[in-house]
């Protein structure tokens, strides 16, 4: 271990800040309204049946109050720009600043989505080319950028699978095989598409064993949803065999692309027999997560599913790019316009910055980093699947539980060392899972500090368990009572509300 650096976390000056409504002073105004250039023009307001006179409760603050309020709030957040954020399956990589700037170029941000085609060729070209890049990376033949997030990409995929079977008069094909390690969105999306989620067990090595799917290979089979690498950070080595079996039984193969960061330039999902996959631009392609969104979840498909893609799709003729609406087999639309365009601008810029070698290097480095961390935690923590991993590794609290220390305690204690905790208690098949995805963005020094923090915590668990159980100590807030929040629901502020924050 080569880490003489102190840990990054420190205590410092943090401001308290009330709810914005408590800063209100009646009559105070924080904005400058456009001049009225129509003095003298009078018109009839709608009558009282339609009109409102006041927006009771809305803040009344000055601009500086507003700026201080949000600046103080922002300082209570952990973020990628502050420190290492190793959430497994979330791919919290660096979000390049130039991409933020480029997405704000007025030509992109101030272009109306109903603009005539000849006035929006820039947007259309960008979307057309981004779709092309995603086709190349996924090894699939057509792409829709419309889904606004991964789960909507999943829904698009499952709706296409459903539509394909219905088009073949195979209405009874409703079973979708979903491994027990899958994200919760998989079964939820499946059901929303009118299909049935069938949970299948992962093998003892964390991989899907072709044997377990055999009983389901019949004319009720709609397909399979696989995450690859799966949520244990393990490559599904039998993916192509399983694809062949599914295809022979008349089903289709969906790949959850949440973990695509590990595969880019190394293997193409299309070469593994995948018929449809979604791609998270907000994971693999560096667009920021925004505290939960917006994301973007394009969906890529093989030839056979291409006619079912959402409308419109972007096409090109000799002179221009245009929107193609005439696609009779399409599942329809998922978005009021074309998807989260400004997120696409960032992803496009990222791919153009990296080029083919850069993209591959990203994937390789993400794998190197995860294995580096896994290797050095091997003795202090239990590794349920000790083999080589891909972009993330999974540990648990088995060795610490003898001292009464849980995964949640370890996670909270990491905050005191200056790190965001990894994903915890997921995947569900590992008891007390701790899932670490460092991404390619972290330097060796950051990873060494993170490893060292976890080793410290493993020692503390033995020698001073109380300090771990009562963590976190440094953040603004101590552990929050989530049960109370769900029992005494308070989802908004009202003037008679008693709580003082």
């Amino acid at each position, binding site marked *: 271990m080569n880490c003489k650096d102190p840990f990054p976390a420190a205590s410092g000056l943090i401001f308290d800040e009330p709810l914005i409504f408590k800063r209100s002073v009646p009559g105070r105004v924080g904005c400058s309204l456009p001049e009225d250039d129509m003095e003298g023009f009078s018109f009839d307001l709608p009558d009282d049946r339609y009109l*409102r006179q006041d927006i009771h409760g809305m803040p009344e603050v000055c601009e500086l109050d507003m700026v201080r309020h949000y600046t103080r709030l922002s300082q209570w957040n952990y973020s990628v720009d502050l420190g290492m954020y190793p959430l497994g399956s979330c791919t919290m990589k660096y979000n390049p600043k130039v991409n933020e700037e480029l997405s704000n170029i007025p030509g992109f941000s101030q272009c109306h989505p109903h603009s005539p085609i000849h006035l929006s060729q820039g947007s259309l070209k960008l979307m057309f080319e981004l779709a092309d890049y995603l086709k190349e990376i996924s090894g699939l033949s057509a792409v829709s950028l419309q889904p606004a997030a991964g789960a909507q990409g999943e829904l698009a995929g499952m709706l296409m699978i459903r539509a394909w079977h219905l088009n073949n008069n195979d209405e009874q094909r409703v079973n979708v095989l979903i491994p027990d390690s899958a994200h919760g969105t998989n079964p939820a999306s499946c059901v929303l598409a009118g299909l049935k989620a069938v949970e299948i067990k992962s093998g003892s090595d964390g991989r899907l064993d072709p044997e377990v799917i055999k009983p389901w290979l019949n004319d009720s089979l709609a397909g399979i949803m696989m995450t690859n690498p799966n949520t244990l950070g393990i490559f599904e080595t039998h993916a192509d065999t399983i694809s062949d079996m599914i295809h022979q039984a008349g089903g289709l193969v969906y790949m959850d692309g949440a973990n695509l960061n590990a595969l880019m330039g190394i293997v193409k999902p299309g070469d593994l027999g995948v018929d449809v996959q979604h791609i998270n631009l907000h994971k693999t392609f560096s667009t920021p997560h925004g505290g939960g969104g917006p994301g973007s979840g394009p969906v890529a498909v093989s030839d056979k599913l291409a006619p079912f893609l959402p409308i419109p799709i972007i096409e090109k003729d000799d002179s221009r790019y245009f929107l193609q609406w005439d696609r009779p087999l399409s599942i329809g639309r998922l978005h009021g316009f074309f998807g989260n365009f400004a997120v696409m601008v960032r992803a496009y810029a990222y791919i153009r910055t990296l080029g083919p070698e850069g993209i591959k290097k990203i994937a390789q480095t993400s794998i190197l980093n995860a294995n580096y961390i896994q290797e050095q935690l091997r003795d202090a923590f239990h590794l349920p699947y000790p083999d080589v991993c891909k972009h993330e590794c999974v540990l648990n609290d088995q060795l610490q539980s003898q001292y009464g220390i849980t995964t949640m305690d370890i996670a909270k204690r990491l905050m005191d060392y200056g790190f965001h905790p990894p994903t915890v208690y997921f995947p569900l098949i590992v008891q007390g899972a701790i899932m670490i995805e460092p991404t390619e963005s972290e330097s060796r020094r950051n990873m060494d500090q993170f490893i060292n923090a976890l080793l410290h915590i493993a020692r503390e668990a033995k020698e001073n368990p109380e300090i771990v159980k009562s963590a976190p100590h440094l953040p603004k807030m101590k552990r929050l009572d989530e049960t109370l929040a769900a029992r005494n629901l308070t989802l908004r502020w009202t003037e008679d509300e008693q709580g003082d924050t």
Partner: protein
Amino acid sequence: MHYIPLTEEECRQMLKVIGVSSIDDLLKDIPAKKRLKQALNLPEAMSEQTLTRYMQALAQNNVTHESLPCFMGAGAYRHFVPAAVRSMSARSEFVTAYTPYQPEISQGSLQAMFEYQTMMTQLTGLPVSNASMYDGAMAAAEAALLAVRSSRNNVIAVSKTLNPAYRTVLETYTANAGVSLLELPLADNGQTDLSPLADTDPKSLAGIMIQSPNMLGVIEDVESTKSSIINPKTLLIVVVTEALSLAALKPPGECGADVVCGEAQSLGLPVNYGGPYLGFFAVKDNLVRKMPGRVVGMTVDSDGKCGFVNTLSTREQHIRRDKATSNICTNQALCAITSAMYMTCMGRKGLREVALLNMKKSACLKAGIQKIKGFSIPFEGPVFNEFTITYSGDTESLQKHLAEKGIIGGYDLRCTYPELGNAMVVCATETNTLDEINQFVSALAEWAGEVS
């Protein structure tokens, strides 16, 4: 590659720690025959300077509403956003955080979201708001699914005046959910014709969905729609695609709506060629546990201090999996926080004033167009910032004329509302100066003069 910090030497040392000699040794579980032998066929890498120039040139192939007078609305609205809103919403502490799964170090996003939820309840007149949906169209679709869940009925009566893109999304989302959609046609006054409800079994009706102001710009009569509901289980869903209108118009929640949902892009987000936008979703108290999407609640920490957490997650997919109320996971959190910043900046007074200014600008445009021979205003009812115009003559020639004059006109309604003949819905906001309005009116008059 400057996004990867490791030097070659560091890579070598790290491989040594792992106990392998090359990165390829870490890829052995990927069948060799499937591993790519050649590089991806992608454009070569660009430096930051080259990329910036390239992207700026690409953006110049778009025309913005700042460079040409634009009267387009129909689901995406041009509004002025104060610099303070852009500046605060660009703070990387908000931008580069993940979903607040660890509330102790995510209180900034959580409190801002709680404030957003509160403001949406103030605007809509309903007591509960979730923390956002993808966009207005998806929010409307989820509202229909909520009505089906809560009523255990399967018919959703949908107004013909619902934005047609929303209608298509609704069809896509409900296609496999055993839902049947009943169309409520357009009445002569531009509002929804509720008469088909008389022939519908009230016991089968899960919900009635109207939009106000509707696709044609007309404000719907929410109270009368409510009074047409016979079955207490039937939900009244009011979709609002222009959320700023809520600052001037009576909140649908006070007129009997059970769900008020739609698009809040107009509260601080640029038009962005269609996204990211902000689906909002507000409900009555009795629907809170059936509502889709994340929601932030207040609680205390172990020292008794007030704080915020994501709550009611037992409805959600990561716990409930195939029994979840929705598959939504990632939402539009930063857009919601941005809109809270916008509402904070505009405030109680400013929001209402800017909304009234929108009414004034559109009234001014309407007065101008009304005078042109050959153009007419088919619906008399009150409007917010959009209204429908009809005209005689060839649409292609009109569009060509506007293009020559450098004006982006309204949204062509011929495909979706053929019963109106030649029609478009035009939108004037506070961003349109009187001069632009005059230019647009003159251009229309000139064309009408030419064709007549």
